[in-house]
């Protein structure tokens, strides 16, 4: 049977030195601090990690929605010409495989609402809402879906605790791929 000879101490030392001096990759990535990445670091995790300071309620959100969202989504989120889907309610998912998905009948995490409104809305002016406006719009959408009350304050600590009706409605399709 072939047994590899243990490398000499000198060779090992050389290997360590050379791997430090000559990394296995070209090393052309330029170091950057996390502070400098922050303007792009906008993804909110389902546990709320990444949520910024600020707060809002559905009452405040109704005003934000009327001003910034209703042009496409219709009054009160009923749907408009450019965004016809209703933003609340929704049939039970057992109604059919093509049941329209809403925050109320489908979305598993409240953080998705904040994340998507902040990164993508308004559609033609994304990332222009203040954090307070995003919290307020998020609260309004959750209120429309009868998930929170009209005066419940949404902020970095309360939002992730909101229990979404369909939170446990998902099956991981290929667990072995994770």
């Amino acid at each position, binding site marked *: 049977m072939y047994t590899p000879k243990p490398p000499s101490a000198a060779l090992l030392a050389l290997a360590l030195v050379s791997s430090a001096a000559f990394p*296995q*990759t070209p090393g052309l990535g330029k170091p950057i601090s996390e502070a400098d990445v922050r303007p792009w670091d906008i*993804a909110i*995790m389902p546990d709320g990690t990444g949520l910024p300071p600020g707060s809002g309620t559905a009452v405040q959100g109704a005003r934000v929605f009327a001003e910034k969202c209703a042009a496409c989504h219709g009054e009160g989120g009923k749907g408009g010409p450019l965004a016809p889907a209703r933003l609340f309610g929704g049939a039970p998912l*057992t109604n059919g*495989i093509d049941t329209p998905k809403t925050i109320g009948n489908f979305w598993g995490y409240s953080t998705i609402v904040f994340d998507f409104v902040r990164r*993508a809305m308004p*559609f033609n002016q994304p990332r222009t809402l203040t954090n307070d406006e995003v919290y307020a719009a998020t609260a309004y959408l959750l209120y429309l879906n009868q998930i929170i009350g009209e005066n419940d304050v949404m902020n970095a600590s309360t939002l992730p605790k909101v229990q979404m009706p369909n939170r446990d409605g*998902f099956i991981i399709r290929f667990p072995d791929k994770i």
Partner: protein
Amino acid sequence: MSRDRSGKKWVEPVVVADNGLLDRRAFLRGGAAFAAAITGYAAAKPASGEPLVDDPWSLEMGTVTPPLQVPSRFEQNVVRTLSNPKNELRNSHARTPHHLLNGTITPNSLHFSINHSGLPDIDPAKHRLVIHGLVKQPLVYTLESLSRYPMESRMAFVECSGNSAPMFSNEPVQATAQALHGLVSCSEWTGVRLSTLIEEAGADPKAKWVIAEGGDSLALHRSVPMKKALDDAMVAVYQNGERLMPGNGYPMRLLLPGYQGNMNVKFLRRLKLTDGPAMSYYEGRTYSQILPDGKAYRFHFVQEVKSFITHPSFGLKMNGPGFYEISGVAYSGNGRISKVMVSADGGKSWGEAALQAPVLPKAFTRFRMPWRWDGRPVVLQSRAWDEGGNAQPTRAEFVAVRGETKTPVKSPLSFPNQHYNSVTSWGIGSDGEIKHVYA
């Protein structure tokens, strides 16, 4: 037994399945005599009174060679079809015309494209890609610095998980292979292995996911398991030899061979290593699909084994009985295609199609099957298997698990559900008309 014009004997071509499907090796061993035999025109009398002539273009110099060539003006119908032709303030799709193409590579101008907020006009000199999060050292790359890295090329299909979604309809939608299956394309992609960049930044052992995000106005983001990121993921910068098309992610995109199209984040500008998934809008809502019992699949990732016949198919015309080649594409997000069977009688009998080499993993494989149509009604189907032993389901098998709509889907542009991969059936009438049917 018959004789050809030279008087040599030839063997009746082997019929391998009903309604005229012929042995896939026919042309390899039969040669010209065989071809003559299956067309039945070996002894055709030469036509008279039609002498060949020089057409005008043969008698004058043509146009000067252009810097960027485009197809002949006679191919103007070979274009992508659009979901938002009026450029409204919403998403827009363009579908690949599979019924008008052949081979395994999708030309860049015809690669499918879905843009949830239009095409950003990215200046490649200003574009940045950052890798950060659970790493030893966050790093930022430019297109110039990435272009100095060791690169590799690989063929890979990219497929929207909403491709073929009209087939969830309880009645067959009458539409071309382009309309039904045009949200998949296949290219040779060239770029840098994602594992190289992760190694360079130094992954923390706690990192289990990579959040990939684009530089489009939605900053579209998806969570990718580290398993995939370290396996065969690539930051692609070239597509079929040239820089990426804007609709396919210029100047750089994530390529996750075999994984649902939306995860192959375009305009890639950020990679964040994390211990859990982001549960982003597109993974938490859009690309999670409702099952008949009201539960929903999450993290489907893999585009499972599929095939469809492109020739003949809806939108093409049959030109009377006689010889035709049945051909189409097969692919699997789980690896190589191992076998494609073809039926001309709606699945009652099957013959094995020839797989055109090279058969590459997670890429289009072109299958071909010689066929002599006798002019009677037939139903053509193809069914693929991959090297993992996965079989493309029949429609009945698929619907039994994943369901169908209760009312007919009106528009082939709608997405009743996602991840559809059953057998497609083309019914051909004795008049030569081709319909989309369920069989």
